[in-house]
């Protein structure tokens, strides 16, 4: 608290900051419009495609003889197509879109390299089309999390690098001296992401070493590419919407460095009990356990920022989605640390429990934060408001309850499946039979989440097309009592807190 207030005090004549016009936020937001809209609209399209693929895959467990005549709709192709579209299409592109806006805002400068980013989004989309069709047509590389054929990555890697150039050019022109923690996370992930993808595409692996490299990669895509922008957004939006600075800057630095140092070693716990060299697996388990540190640090920091302001969750869609995501981050990460241990892996590895865990991470954490961020960013970028708080509420409840039921069902079902697998007296077909009810819950909750996605896409289409009458003010779930949110924000928008208290004012 003390360090926060000292850092948010105006520093002696900031060299460039003083030349900022009073309406700098509008200028900055406008400069990000094209790329932010392109990335987020594309991401949402891939979210819809990915959700439909997920539903096809899930319902095949209830109807295994449904759509089997066509090879391109077989489960073993639809499932990786789902994973690749939601990871590289939805959450990656949404992450870049959100990061662009946060980056320019936090560096207090116009976005540079808009054309690079527009070219990037174009290449990326073509790559995703090639990759998705490639998997369905039978050209999967069959390496988990990197299934798309090389032709797709040949487009996506340059797209990533173009985005990096635009981010560096913007960083170069920054009007701040102090780099807020969100900038650390976004900047680091932009170095990590392309490095990871290029490293796993190198044609140097086979056999068991390929498997260790595979899980080093897959887990790091989660932890070093998807997680950092989501944490950056949580660090930005929670203080921003609530209207008080983040509890402790020191804790946020500690959280960053421990994540950077520990997370990237954790992935090979996916091979516990497998034929990989034992030392590799043991190292990964140790670092997975050490991940407790950054997780607790982030959780404590966010909790102490929000504490006393939980009532604001009633009104602000952004806050509600982001806090849901931040809490899920704590749960999924602690769960991740615990389940890396051998005794727990012995039960849950190879079961639907793992699928529950991955959805808790990519969905309940990262995706929910992405939704919340987009609800905040989009009105500022396109200068229009969300048309229906009701539909936002429907979106929240269908996705929130959907993922809640999804994770609960597969966690319980997975543990039962795992315990049964350990008992040689239970026949395999009995286990299959006992898993079926939980897979029905998965299909139902997946349907619920997909409904939420279509509602979200509809809202996004309406705000982008500015259809209907101009809504009169920001979308809140309920009428907001006077004084709940500070309305004296520098950009003249209803939900912006005073400049002295928001993360952008730390320089």
């Amino acid at each position: 608290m003390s360090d926060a207030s000292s850092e948010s005090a105006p520093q002696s004549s900031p060299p460039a900051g003083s030349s900022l016009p009073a309406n700098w936020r509008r200028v900055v937001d406008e400069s990000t419009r094209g790329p932010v809209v392109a990335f987020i609209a594309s991401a949402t399209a891939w979210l819809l495609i990915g959700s439909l693929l997920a539903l096809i895959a899930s319902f095949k467990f209830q109807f295994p003889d449904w759509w089997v005549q066509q090879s391109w709709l077989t489960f073993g192709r639809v499932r990786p197509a789902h994973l690749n579209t939601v990871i590289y299409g939805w959450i990656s592109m949404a992450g870049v879109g959100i990061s662009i806006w946060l980056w320019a805002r936090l560096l207090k400068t116009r976005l540079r390299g808009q054309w690079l980013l527009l070219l990037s989004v174009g290449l990326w989309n073509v790559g995703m089309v090639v990759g998705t069709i490639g998997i369905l047509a039978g050209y999967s590389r069959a390496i988990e999390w990197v299934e798309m054929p090389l032709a797709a990555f040949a487009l996506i890697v340059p797209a990533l690098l173009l985005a990096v150039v635009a981010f560096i050019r913007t960083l170069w022109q920054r009007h701040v001296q102090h780099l807020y923690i969100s900038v650390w996370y976004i900047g680091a992930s932009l170095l990590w992401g392309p490095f990871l993808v290029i490293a796993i595409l190198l044609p140097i692996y086979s056999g068991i070493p390929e498997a260790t490299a595979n899980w080093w990669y897959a887990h790091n895509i989660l932890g070093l590419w998807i997680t950092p922008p989501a944490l950056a957004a949580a660090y930005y939006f929670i203080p921003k919407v609530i209207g008080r600075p983040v509890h402790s800057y020191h804790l946020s630095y500690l959280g960053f460095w421990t994540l950077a140092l520990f997370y990237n070693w954790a992935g090979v716990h996916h091979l516990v009990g497998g034929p990989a060299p034992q030392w590799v697996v043991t190292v990964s388990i140790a670092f997975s356990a050490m991940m407790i540190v950054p997780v607790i640090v982030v959780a404590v920091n966010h909790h102490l920022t929000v504490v006393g302001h939980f009532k604001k969750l009633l009104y602000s869609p952004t806050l509600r989605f982001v806090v849901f995501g931040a809490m899920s981050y704590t749960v999924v990460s602690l769960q991740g640390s615990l389940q890396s241990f051998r005794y727990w892996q012995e039960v849950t590895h190879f079961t639907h429990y793992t699928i529950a865990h991955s959805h808790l991470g990519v969905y309940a954490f990262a995706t929910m934060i992405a939704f919340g961020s987009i609800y905040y960013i989009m009105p500022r970028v396109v200068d229009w408001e969300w048309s229906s708080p009701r539909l936002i509420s429907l979106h929240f409840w269908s996705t929130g309850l959907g993922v809640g039921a999804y994770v609960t069902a597969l966690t319980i079902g997975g543990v039962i499946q795992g315990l049964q697998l350990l008992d040689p007296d239970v026949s395999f077909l009995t286990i299959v039979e006992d898993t079926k009810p939980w897979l029905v819950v998965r299909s139902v909750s997946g349907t619920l989440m997909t409904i939420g996605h279509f509602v979200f896409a509809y809202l996004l289409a309406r705000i982008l097309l500015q259809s209907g009458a101009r809504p009169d003010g920001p979308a809140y779930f309920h009428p907001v009592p006077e004084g709940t949110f500070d309305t004296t924000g520098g950009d003249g928008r209803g939900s912006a807190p005073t400049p002295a208290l928001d993360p952008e004012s730390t320089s």
Partner: protein
Amino acid sequence: MTRAALIFLGAFAAVAMSFTALALLPSLQLSTIEPTPGTSDYTYSEQLGREVYIREGCMYCHSQQVRPEGFGADQARGWGPRGSRPGDYVYDETHQLGTMRTGPDLHDIGSRQPSRDWQLAHLYQPRSVSPGSVMPAYPYLFEVKRESNVRPSEVTVPLSSEYAPPGDSVVVATQEALALYDYLMTLTLDPIDQNSDG
């Protein structure tokens, strides 16, 4: 500038280190490993079958790694006489270890279920031999044709009347289905001496 450089280069160095340790070192450590007894390079047909296995995503439900003694119940289940070893995979260009057991492990399927009739019937319609199975059927790996048109070189799949095609039609395996069978039969684990370093 120095501060930004410090943050981002430090972060980059961290991941470069784990890349070296977890992705590159195992390659070096295992580069000289010998294949275990019974492990040999794939024939043309086996390799073709392996490509079908990869293409259809069998890995998403079937692992290819038997757990060692004392960890899980794989061996008690009859899934293999020993835990899998790095030497079992030396000819695998794209590893198919898998992370999921919606279906059983397949690393020793060649010993457990060598019957070609069973395997082909199971691929054509899993529920014809495994009632209650949730495995997809792969009818596109087979042809349905009139019995009189079947050439002597072709392999007919025996099916119970419930799943057999109507009339005088029969189900014939395509080259891909036979290749997939050939590949599955390469998946065997020979018992080896506990002390040898396979």
